[in-house]
């Protein structure tokens, strides 16, 4: 603690080099330890790498990340509508639609995770007991599309209208039925899709904005989560709650 306070007194530009020297990262001929020492001392300050968040001063730049790499526009709209019901706008702040959660989901499903690249996918696929893992062959990206189609099919059956045209109460009713698992999607329980949708919505609200959601870190700001700062030496011992402006991983670039 004492040491790190000393670094805080260092000039910003030289603290990294000094840190590496002072903390003896090269002792006994063996070089190890921190490569990020220089960031100690910066944690309490706001770094100005992020675009300013007050729109009245800065014209909002177009976000090249907010485009589709997986969904069709229709699928995207259904996803926007469904995720907004999972995580709706309210007095706390934006909902999934304004946080770009559907963009996040689009990008995730286009990634290796969408094709279960790191899951065990070899057969055979037997029926699982409740304490075992779901044994399904279908890839996440296909399950999601199946679910979106299911939302429309079910909405049409129940309300004679596709999902995006329903009002909020009707959409909640459809999602509740999906959650209960009563509806079948090509033989799969709708609850499997619902769980995926729910999990992706929460991730999209709170993952680092580089993934496409959590727009302007507003997901974090709502719950006073400071994002990915480099140290909390003061906060961890403070009896008072300290609300910090969130910082994203972009503020770690260039070190």
């Amino acid at each position, binding site marked *: 603690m004492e*040491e790190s306070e000393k670094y805080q007194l260092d000039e910003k530009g030289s603290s990294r080099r000094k840190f590496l020297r002072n903390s003896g990262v090269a002792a006994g001929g063996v070089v190890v330890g921190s490569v990020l020492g220089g960031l100690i001392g910066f944690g309490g300050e706001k770094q100005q790498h992020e675009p300013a968040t007050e729109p009245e001063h800065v014209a909002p730049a177009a976000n090249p990340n907010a485009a589709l790499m997986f969904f069709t526009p229709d699928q995207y709209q259904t996803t926007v509508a469904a995720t907004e019901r999972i995580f709706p706008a309210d007095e706390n702040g934006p909902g999934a639609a304004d946080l770009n959660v559907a963009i996040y989901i689009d990008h995730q499903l286009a990634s290796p995770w969408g094709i279960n690249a790191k899951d065990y996918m070899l057969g055979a696929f037997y029926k699982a007991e409740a304490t075992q893992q779901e044994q399904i062959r279908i890839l996440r990206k296909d399950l999601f599309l199946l679910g979106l189609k299911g939302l429309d099919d079910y909405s049409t059956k129940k309300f004679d209208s596709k999902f995006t045209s329903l009002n909020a109460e009707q959409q909640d009713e459809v999602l509740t039925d999906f959650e209960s698992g009563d509806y079948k999607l090509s033989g799969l329980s709708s609850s499997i899709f619902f769980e995926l949708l729910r999990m992706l919505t929460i991730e999209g609200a709170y993952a680092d904005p580089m993934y496409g959601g959590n727009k302007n870190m507003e997901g974090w700001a709502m719950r006073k989560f400071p994002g990915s700062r480099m140290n909390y030496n003061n906060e961890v011992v403070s009896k008072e709650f300290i609300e910090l402006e969130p910082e994203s991983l972009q503020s770690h670039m260039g070190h």
Partner: protein
Amino acid sequence: MSTKLPKVPAVIVGMGWAGGIIASELTKAGIKVVGIERGKERTTNDYLMGHDELRFQHRTELMQDLSKETITHRNHPNMRALPMRSYGTFIVGDGVGGAGSHWNGQTYRFLPYDFEIKSLTEEKYGANKLGSEYTLQDWGITYDEIEPYYDTFEKMAGISGETVEMYGHRSNPYPTGPMVKTPTFELFEEATKKLGYHPYMLPSANLSENYTNPDGISRSACQYCAFCENFGCEYGAKADPVVTVIPVAKETGNLDLRTHSNVTRILNDGTKATGVVYVNTITGEEFEQPADVVIVTSYVFNNVRLLLNSNLGTPYNPETGEGSIGKNYCYQVSAGATTLFYEDKEFNNYAGAGALGIEIPDFAGDNFDHSDVNFIHGSGIRMTQYGNRPIAINQVPSGTSSWGSEFKKQSIKYANSTLQVKSQGASMPHKDNYLDLDPEYKDAYGMPLLRMTYDYTEQDKELVKYMSKVTRKIAEEIGADHYETTEEQAAFNVNVDTNTHNTGGVIMGVDPKTSAVNSYLQMWEAENVFVIGASAFPHNSSFNPTGTIGALSYRASEGIIKYLKDGGGSLV
């Protein structure tokens, strides 16, 4: 088919904590070592851009790639075991540093009671305290014998902590002082003291201060950055093989580290090993590495699997109780927790560290009388502060829907306004809980997967019920607006996040009939094979395992060096 390489004195399979320690000790003694690791090379550079909850915690970036191998699970022998296709419960390390790269760093010693659990339980409570289906065993080493090795491990890692009177004797205090006491820990401290308990700061491998270890490795103090459990530490503040033992081994020039190399078999004639076979996971090329000594440090699961796939040792038979490979698989119980909800208090719970915690020793081991309860051993009752990350932690009062406007409102309201009094309980071995080879499922190299047959035992469930009441009592003493207690341990479920404290399968002991390795972790049935890790624990204590793995690794190193010097023979 495979390329045969020149023989070396020692080959190590897996470069996590156990493999790293052995590599460091052997190479310092001048022994040439080949270290084989299935995953990638790793340095602190890999931990930059590390404060990414999605990538490291939920997409398990640093963990074993399950598309290559996993385990299968069933709760009892009459069920068909099925593969764990993605992570739910325990996660498994991969790459140089193993799980030591992304562990929390809670670094305990086991109790004197643990090492002689069978004798001490029988002495105090009689032979029938637990039924005969519980395969309790002494470890073949006493606490006093293992104490110096704990001391060595703690000095190497720079463990921060304070001496606890109710635990085993220490020859030295912890090398660094305890971590900071947060305001919420002060609440826990005050409440538990009032109830007559003895709170202490949890022993931590997140350095509380800058530290230089006996190998000359210097590391800087923890910054409480809160991206610790599941993440690598870019400061080098968390003890990790990558910033401690592995650089020391490399510096000697005696370590030949081969990454992206997956060992599939140990070559042997039934009584001695001649080397290992491994596959280069990038090119698919197969190699044979002959060695005088084969050291298996590939974590509990692969320690057992490699022996079984290599026909080394006698597989455990649950029907007869004979054989030892796969025997006494244990886990831990962590139900029995009370959550405290506050209406208008906020805590800085976004800050924290992986081993930042406060605990009481009063319900651990045999520190309380078990005459009137139908279980033995106990739990650590604790409050921790790892840093609440927003995807993972969304505490809402029970009855709240898991989505929609109510969920959003409540999860945001309580985002910084809950605390938890938790328990982590011991797990006793049972004859029906064991590991063997799956008859059907294979890994990416065509080798059978490990099959786990496991469920929580009655003993462990009784323990949870008891401990849940203790957590409730402490929580009420602390005071909150609303409490919720999980009182029961449900059936073991491979989808439910618990912890990564798997133990047993290649257990140590004094009797070759009932154990697989001696107290140097040398196999009874193959004297030049050493199997090191939590696989050696005959039961699981309530503490996190790595302090004990570290101690056993230092002891095994001593044994291996002696074995090579003496030109063979049993070490006991």
